[in-house]
């Protein structure tokens, strides 16, 4: 027991040393999820810390093996594009859960609800009257020239004005302990299956601690998702047929598409399984055509309909968008939602919230420099080694430069790209993500983590009381994207003790 404690403390000390490495000397120490500045375990981590202390290194390794076996048996895999090895691999998963106190979750819940409400109002506005553009709150060409802006969506009726039905926002904890939004994902956010699978696994490896901790359940997510999707159907379709549309087995998130379809009990279809006839969408089944009401699509806008969008697409179904326009089918998320999670529009989200809701943003943004502004561009170019530079259109950690961890050659390359096409880039100061304890090579060590909660929006907005915590497995790395070799761990959101009293 004593041995365990000392190990954790030792690792904490090591992390501090790493935090003082010369490159990031000016930045404050990252927030530690488990321990406060004095090194004392935070109250909501107490139970877990106690349990870990009773376990030997071998016992921890044993549990990690159990966990990995669970994932392997379940076939929970994903694909890294461009990697030489086999297409699919097991997602690296960490044994130790990340724990969030009830009080903190309340802020996150309220902040995300507010944000999604405002973003949906923003989408409804720019696809109809464009009042916000007329009032000059968001620059007109930023929105109308964005490739993700779909003129085809102009003046279409979207039930409940819910454009983004499934949203996965990326939150990070700043050194002062406050959560901030790093990115909104309103197109086809993925990762929710890992949240569900991680929970299944952590119930197996820490059954006792889990039961005692009062963790809020997330098992209802598939039901909530189905309810949300069904709430988008027209009133006169009492028992709407929902399907999940996947690009196919070669997609990196194919496992998730199949997993969600199975948990919701709805068919999983590819574009070639669909046929549009007389402005209605049908799926081909062994017993003939069956009409479809709701499509939860995991295919990008560009590819859902070769007639309306990319003409060389074989992933969608021709005529789908016309059926959508006529109101005979609902596509979730609505096409064109990407314009609201554009990295350049992101900088304006606090303004957008104030404009539509008259409130201040509960969850702040990260300070963002728009390279399209000449003054901000020159500031970014002068400090490339301190900034994280991202391409506006890209996602998944592709096409970005992490200043402090980059070489001079990489910086020069980005400087050239920035000068050539400044509109396509934004820059953010390098944020020290908070760190949490992870089991690395049989030892407990600190790694940087972020948080991706999932929000559903149909008739009403529901924030799932859980999240995907992504871990940057390389020591000191700040990139957590699973496509860049990041891992994940379970996230426990604790029940408020006050809520439990009658």
């Amino acid at each position, binding site marked *: 027991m004593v041995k365990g404690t000392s190990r954790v403390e030792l690792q904490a000390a090591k992390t501090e040393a790493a935090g003082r490495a010369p490159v990031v000397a000016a930045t404050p120490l990252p927030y530690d999820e488990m321990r406060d500045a004095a090194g004392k375990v935070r109250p909501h981590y107490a139970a877990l810390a106690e349990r870990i202390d009773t376990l030997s290194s071998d016992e921890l390794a044993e549990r990690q093996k159990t966990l990995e076996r669970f994932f392997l048996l379940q076939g929970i895999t994903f694909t890294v594009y461009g990697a030489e090895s086999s297409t699919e691999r097991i997602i690296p998963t960490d044994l130790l859960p990340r724990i969030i106190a009830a009080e903190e979750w309340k802020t996150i819940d309220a902040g995300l609800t507010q944000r999604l409400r405002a973003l949906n109002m923003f989408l409804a506005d720019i696809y109809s009257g464009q009042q916000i*553009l*007329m009032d000059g709150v968001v620059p*007109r*060409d930023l929105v*109308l*020239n964005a490739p993700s802006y779909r*003129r*085809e969506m*102009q003046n279409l009726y979207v039930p409940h004005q819910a454009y983004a039905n499934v949203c996965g926002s990326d939150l990070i904890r700043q050194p002062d302990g406050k959560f901030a939004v790093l990115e909104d994902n309103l197109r086809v956010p993925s990762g929710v299956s890992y949240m569900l699978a991680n929970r299944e696994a952590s119930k197996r490896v820490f059954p006792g601690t889990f039961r005692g901790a009062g963790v809020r359940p997330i098992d209802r997510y598939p039901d909530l998702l189905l309810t949300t999707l069904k709430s988008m159907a027209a009133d006169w379709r009492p028992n709407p047929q929902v399907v999940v549309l996947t690009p196919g087995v070669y997609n990196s998130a194919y496992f998730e598409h199949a997993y969600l379809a199975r948990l919701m009990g709805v068919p999983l279809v*590819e*574009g*070639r399984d669909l*046929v*549009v*006839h*007389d*402005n209605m969408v049908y799926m081909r089944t062994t017993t003939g055509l069956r009409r479809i009401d709701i499509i939860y699509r995991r295919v990008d806008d560009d590819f859902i309909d*070769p*007639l309306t969008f990319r*003409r*060389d*697409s*074989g992933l969608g179904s*021709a*005529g789908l968008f*016309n059926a959508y*326009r*006529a109101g005979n089918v609902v596509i979730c998320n609505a096409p064109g939602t990407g314009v609201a999670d554009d990295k350049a529009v992101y900088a304006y989200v606090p303004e957008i919230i104030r404009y539509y809701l008259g409130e201040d943003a509960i969850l702040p943004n990260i300070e963002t420099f728009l390279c399209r502004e000449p003054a901000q561009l020159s500031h970014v170019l002068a400090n490339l080694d301190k900034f994280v530079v991202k391409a506006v259109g890209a996602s998944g950690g592709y096409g970005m430069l992490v200043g402090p961890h980059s070489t001079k050659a990489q910086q020069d390359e980005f400087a050239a790209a920035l000068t050539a096409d400044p509109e396509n880039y934004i820059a953010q100061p390098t944020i020290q993500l908070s760190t949490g304890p992870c089991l690395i090579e049989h030892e407990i060590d600190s790694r940087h983590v972020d948080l991706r909660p999932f929000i559903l929006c149909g008739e009403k907005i529901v924030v799932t009381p859980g999240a995907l915590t992504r871990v940057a497995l390389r020591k000191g790395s700040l990139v957590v994207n699973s496509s860049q070799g990041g891992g994940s761990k379970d996230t426990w959101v604790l029940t408020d003790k006050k809520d439990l009293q009658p």
Partner: protein
Amino acid sequence: MLLAVRHSTRYQYDEPVRESVMELWMQPQKRTHQRLISFELEIDPAAQLFSYADTFGNAVYHFDIPQPHDKLTITARSAVETEPPPALPTQLDRGEWDRLKSDFVRGEHFDYLHPHGFTGPTESLAKFIAERKLEELRVRDPLSAMRDLNSILYQAFAYEAGVTRADSPIDHVLKARKGVCQDFAHVMIAICRGWGIPARYVSGYLFTDRKAGDRSDPDATHAWVEVFLPSLRWVGFDPTNNILAAERHIACAVGRDYSDVPPSRGVYKGEAESELAVGVTVRKARAAVSEPEFLRISQPAPRPGQRRSQYSGLAYDQQRQQQQ
């Protein structure tokens, strides 16, 4: 002027195809100085027609044919009454350039001020502008500049079908110095947008009058340009024939460029080569409307890799008709 239009489009496939889905931008607009009297669409094989208004306010018809078929014909018949637009002033004051910069114009006509698809600035366009000293036109008021630009484009390019195709970028026509109305319209739009004058592509028909000097083909659809000048609103220029768009022009649809408003576009499933034939007749009404004698065979579109055994669910892009 009372005009009757018959526009036939025929797709022929060397092997049966299925699940054809098509969209048509063929209905003449109802607009100032143009009254739509009747519009009929005939589809063979028969199909249920649906319609919607697109972002630019055009009427779009669409249908699908699920069963196997080796031929698809679309016949659009319309009757339109047009009247000449009021005479334009000989010139405007130069303050018009400032009015073009107003927030209202820049906001309302955002889409018609920015490059899109075919109408972006290119190197050969810059060369062309320098060679013809087009920048000097901007010394004058916008209306005179547009008039001059219209005739310069008329002189700079020879009318010749078959040099360019429906999906040719403007570089082709700028290099060959010949093309058809679609190419001339794209070049003019690209120049206007570069100068901050909202310009849009108009797809439609022309009642061709050889005696008046028209050089565009009477058996094809037509395309021209409309520019927005704040004190006159939309003014139509036809660089193919060196005239202003007037009562002989019938507008069907407006868009940022050809790709927004092709007369017909669609996809089908099946491994087959297609052949597209188009015939247009525009007659003064009450004169006997005769059937067109021949259908123009458009150039076969090469589709690399089409015959490769990809899975049969892949949809193929229908060949599109060039506007001439």
